[in-house]
């Protein structure tokens, strides 16, 4: 009797938390006009804060930040950084929104994924960094991540890492079943059929419906389902890019050619290790997870460029990746920004690359040392060359909704059905579109 009751109540609590985040969002109206005139004054204030010292709290789940904090404190002995893992992804965003609504208890710096940043920027919970001179860092970061933090004339975070997509494939499985590494998604579909016919236990990949993955592939296909202009928002999953995705992916799903396994589950790790999941199209941050999570398959996997929607193209997209933002409620914003700069554009970047993270800084993406790094896990392959090329080929102009965290949270209620019932992906996306727009207009956005 204990457990179900608690679960119901937990659900209630989450509802409350969601309700809190709604109120936080609904205040979003006009876009911030930034005062970048006193940028140099801001920069010197940052230096002064470092000399004076103090304590800041950082909410982040990125594991490589531990080393960054150690080095930061060693360089500035008067500064103390309290690094807190307040949950991964949407769990942390809920906590963050709660703290924003409550007006206290929040951090000075928070890790926020690119897809979620718009929500916090429009809700005015994160500080516009142009006053500290962040606008001048424009060329420091690769264009994809920078466009994600450069929102409506303000810079609301500094890119921490990026996830230009590539195709990870299990070479052992490909060799065994004589599959060719696909250069287009049509070839990918052929491989999927061949593999599953040869071994009914093996699948080309796993997919049970993942909002980030779906939007990334539509992004790569040149789709622009989301259009955001101030408070005007439109969603349209019937454009050419979205249709390219659904027509191919529908065949994979209908043919039961994708493993019904959730990403990040224990089954998933098992499948990656034993060859029953043969490929993963995902972000360049994946290698560290292969090394720690699938050590048994070391040497089996290789990296290839992402398959194309049209032969001969070389389009790519970002998947995942996060930024560090300064919270508006922070009492020590100068020091918080100093940490951001150290971690995202300073010596911290090297710490993080050594820890297996994939940078967003152009200097590192172009450096020979980085490009020529051989990955023992991938049989000595210089995989960063593929990732760096992918970063350059990211299709420009992609936008997320200013309430993407909520939209992604209802992805499975709508599009997830296509994986378990007769609903088509196209219909599922249409339902998702309607539900997202409904929510948007409830939040006071002009939808159309």
């Amino acid at each position, binding site marked *: *009797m*204990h*457990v179900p*009751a*608690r679960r119901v*109540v*937990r659900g*209630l*609590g989450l509802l*409350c*938390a969601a309700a*809190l985040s709604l109120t936080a969002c609904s205040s979003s109206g006009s876009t911030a006009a930034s005062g970048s005139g006193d940028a140099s004054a801001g920069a010197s204030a940052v230096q002064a804060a470092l000399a004076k010292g103090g304590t800041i709290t950082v*909410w982040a*789940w*990125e*594991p*490589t930040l531990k080393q960054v904090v150690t080095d930061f404190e060693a360089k500035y002995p008067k500064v103390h950084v*309290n690094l*807190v*893992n*307040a*949950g*991964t992804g949407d*769990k942390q965003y809920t*906590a963050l929104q*709660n*703290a924003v*609504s*409550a*007006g*206290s*208890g929040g*951090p000075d710096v928070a890790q926020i994924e690119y897809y979620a940043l718009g929500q916090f920027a429009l809700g005015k919970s994160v500080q516009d960094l142009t006053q500290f001179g962040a606008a001048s860092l424009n060329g420091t970061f690769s264009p994809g991540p920078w466009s994600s933090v450069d929102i409506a004339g303000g810079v609301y975070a500094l890119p921490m*890492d990026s*996830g230009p997509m590539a195709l990870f494939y299990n070479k052992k499985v490909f060799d065994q079943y004589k599959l060719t590494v696909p250069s287009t998604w049509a070839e990918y579909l052929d491989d999927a059929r061949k593999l599953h016919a040869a071994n009914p236990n093996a699948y080309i990949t796993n997919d049970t419906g993942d909002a980030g993955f779906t939007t990334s592939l539509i992004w790569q296909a040149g789709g622009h389902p989301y259009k955001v202009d101030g408070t005007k928002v439109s969603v349209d999953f019937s454009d050419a890019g979205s249709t390219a995705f659904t027509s191919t992916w529908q065949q994979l799903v209908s043919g039961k050619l994708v493993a019904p396994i959730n*990403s*990040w589950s*224990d*089954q998933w*790790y*098992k499948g990656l*290790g*034993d060859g029953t999941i043969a490929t993963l199209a995902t*972000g360049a*941050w*994946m290698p*560290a*997870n292969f090394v*720690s*999570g699938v*050590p*048994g398959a070391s040497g089996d996997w290789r990296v290839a460029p992402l398959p194309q929607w049209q032969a001969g193209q070389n389009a790519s997209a970002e998947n*995942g990746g996060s930024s560090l933002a300064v919270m508006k409620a922070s009492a020590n914003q100068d020091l918080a920004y100093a940490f951001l700069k150290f971690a995202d554009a300073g010596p911290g970047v090297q710490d993080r690359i050594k*820890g*297996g*993270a994939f940078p967003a800084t152009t200097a590192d993406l172009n450096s020979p040392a980085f490009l020529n790094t051989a990955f023992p896990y991938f049989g000595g392959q210089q995989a960063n060359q593929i990732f760096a090329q992918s970063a350059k080929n990211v299709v420009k102009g992609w936008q997320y909704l200013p309430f993407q965290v909520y939209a992604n949270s209802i992805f499975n209620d709508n599009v997830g059905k296509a994986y378990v019932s007769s609903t088509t992906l196209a219909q599922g996306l249409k339902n998702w579109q309607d539900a997202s727009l409904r929510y948007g207009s409830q939040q006071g956005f002009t939808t159309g």
Partner: protein
Amino acid sequence: MTATTPAPTKTSGPGRSPRLRTASSRPRRAYSVDRPRRSRTLTALSSLIVLYTLVPLAWLVVSATKTQANLLGSPGLWFSGRFALWDNISQTLTYDHHVFLRWLLNTLLYVVLGAGGATLLAVLAGYGLAKFDFRGKKTVFAVVIGAVAVPATALAVPTFLMFSTMGLTNTPWAVIIPSLVSPFGLYLMWVFASEAVPAELLEAARVDGSGEVRTFFTIALPLLSPGIVTVLLFTVVATWNNYFLPLIMIKDPNWYPLTLGLNAWNAQAATAGGQPVFNLVITGSLLTIVPLVAAFLLLQRYWQSGLAAGSVKE
């Protein structure tokens, strides 16, 4: 969670000491000599419940003996590969700078102060309400009964907002203070005290010149001890297993109780660059329930009498 186990079906009823029965030197099965007729349906049903309760436990124990790699590659209910239990335990205790031990100490802190305090308050208030007449007693009764119906988790979000304005979130107090209130424990103590402490005894003590405080400590308290242990068990289990309250109150892993810590380890597998440590999550879960299982087994007798007190003497 353990509250659902059908322990009361097996051994003696409340009040009968196990020692009496061993003195009769009969084999264990002979207890049912009073009622020789047995229901097969009931036996089958209780076997199902026993399975339902024990299978996850068996899975946990078996899985705790496997390495991370073996865990994914072998069936859950039987041993496979190297016996890695000791290895897992030592890894669990040392992983990430012994953070598990820190979480264990935090949990103990919340249990000792939270559950201990809740028991103390419940005993004092329950005794007072049962044995003294005063104006507004009916109102207090109504409030307590009403409070029993409101689960603590439903109050967690309002409590969070309140504590936030007081600046108490992210401190141990945010978990301890709400845990101090146990309406159910109070109600249990109240019922127990009105039955277990005869008014005549208190009268006699008063006649003999004992003050109220002295009467409470020397006469009432020993009589109340089975009830106290029961309430203590309830509150300890509730505080030990508490997940939602610390989840929204505490963001600093240094103040996590075990429930949140294990969840954080589990979430690590779904993090870019994170290390999946399913084997440590499982071994950590096993270590987490061991004290509860021990407390339950050792104090089973009190637990049963407590359940009965709550259900019968209304």
